[in-house]
């Protein structure tokens, strides 16, 4: 399938793609997250060592990406709920843009906090 085909090049299609890709990214992250948490069960020393490792700048940057994925998926999900459960509005492109801007803003705020 050619995602870049001209008929797919409109804002609400890109909103769909971002929602799907962020969901996929979070689904891949979740097992790793649970595995790391499970390290606390056998004493905690391994977990502490791992948490020290996560203080590296590259890992922090990846964390910003993760926060953006979370914000994208949440804003995209709320947008879809609004589309499907609230009365229709003709400002669909604006809604998609607001969802994207929200995720970007959350990412920037998180970046400013971790740096």
């Amino acid at each position: 399938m050619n995602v870049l085909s001209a008929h797919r090049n409109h804002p609400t299609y890109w909103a769909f793609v971002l929602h799907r890709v962020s969901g996929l990214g979070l689904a891949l992250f979740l097992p790793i997250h649970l595995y790391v948490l499970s390290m606390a069960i056998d004493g905690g020393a391994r977990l502490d060592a791992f948490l020290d490792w996560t203080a590296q700048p590259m890992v922090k940057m990846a964390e910003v990406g993760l926060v953006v994925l979370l914000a994208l998926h949440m804003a995209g999900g709320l947008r879809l709920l609004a589309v499907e459960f609230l009365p229709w509005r003709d400002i669909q492109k604006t809604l998609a843009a607001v969802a994207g801007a929200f995720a970007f803003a959350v990412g920037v705020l998180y970046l400013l906090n971790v740096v």
Partner: protein
Amino acid sequence: MKAGKTLKVDIWRGGEDGYYQTFAVPYQTSQTILDVVTYVQRKLDPTLSYRFSCRVGMCGSCAMTVNGRPRWTCRTHVDLVAEDGHIEIEPLRNFPLVKDLAVDMSVFFDKWRDAKARFVPSEADLDGFANVDPASRERKEASAGIECIGCGICYAACDVVAWNPDYLGPAALNRAWTLVNDVRDADPNGHLKAVAGDAGCHACHSQQGCTSHCPKSLSPTASIAGLKRKTFAALLKGGL
């Protein structure tokens, strides 16, 4: 572009395993894509198959894929879509191809039937005219979707149709929504039942390709979202 220039036009020829044939077509002011295709058939290759009727955006016969997007060719100006004097014209996506630019529309209209997208009269209609308040919510909802010309552009723009060949598609669901909002219709729950299954309104991913491409500026996505809410409410009330 200026008059006197020549357009390079690639047109799909043959069936599914066909090929692009390139034609040189003289550019004219205010020329439409349908003008281009008609020029090719009348002056360059009379074996070219395509479909049109009214030429003024009423009948919905002449839709084709132009530079990757489904469009009504009679009202699409060359100036709007030509890229450096180049135009690529293909048949509509998601339809079985007959030949060249002519597709088989029967599957599209069969789905209108499957969506029970036809009016069900009631006995009360026999006693005179129904009074429908133009300002009522139902009338406004129906009016918003009623101007569909059945061109199939939404169906060609829809990825869900490509993924699930049984999906009823934006046009049939849009028509069903106008009937659900028609206060004269005797079987609103019958319409909802027909569109509540796997291949119905809930299969829509709200990508809004239909809404982005509808030449009449309708929003099938709005109609489908309405059907999603109505079928959900009918389910809770035991109406499905």
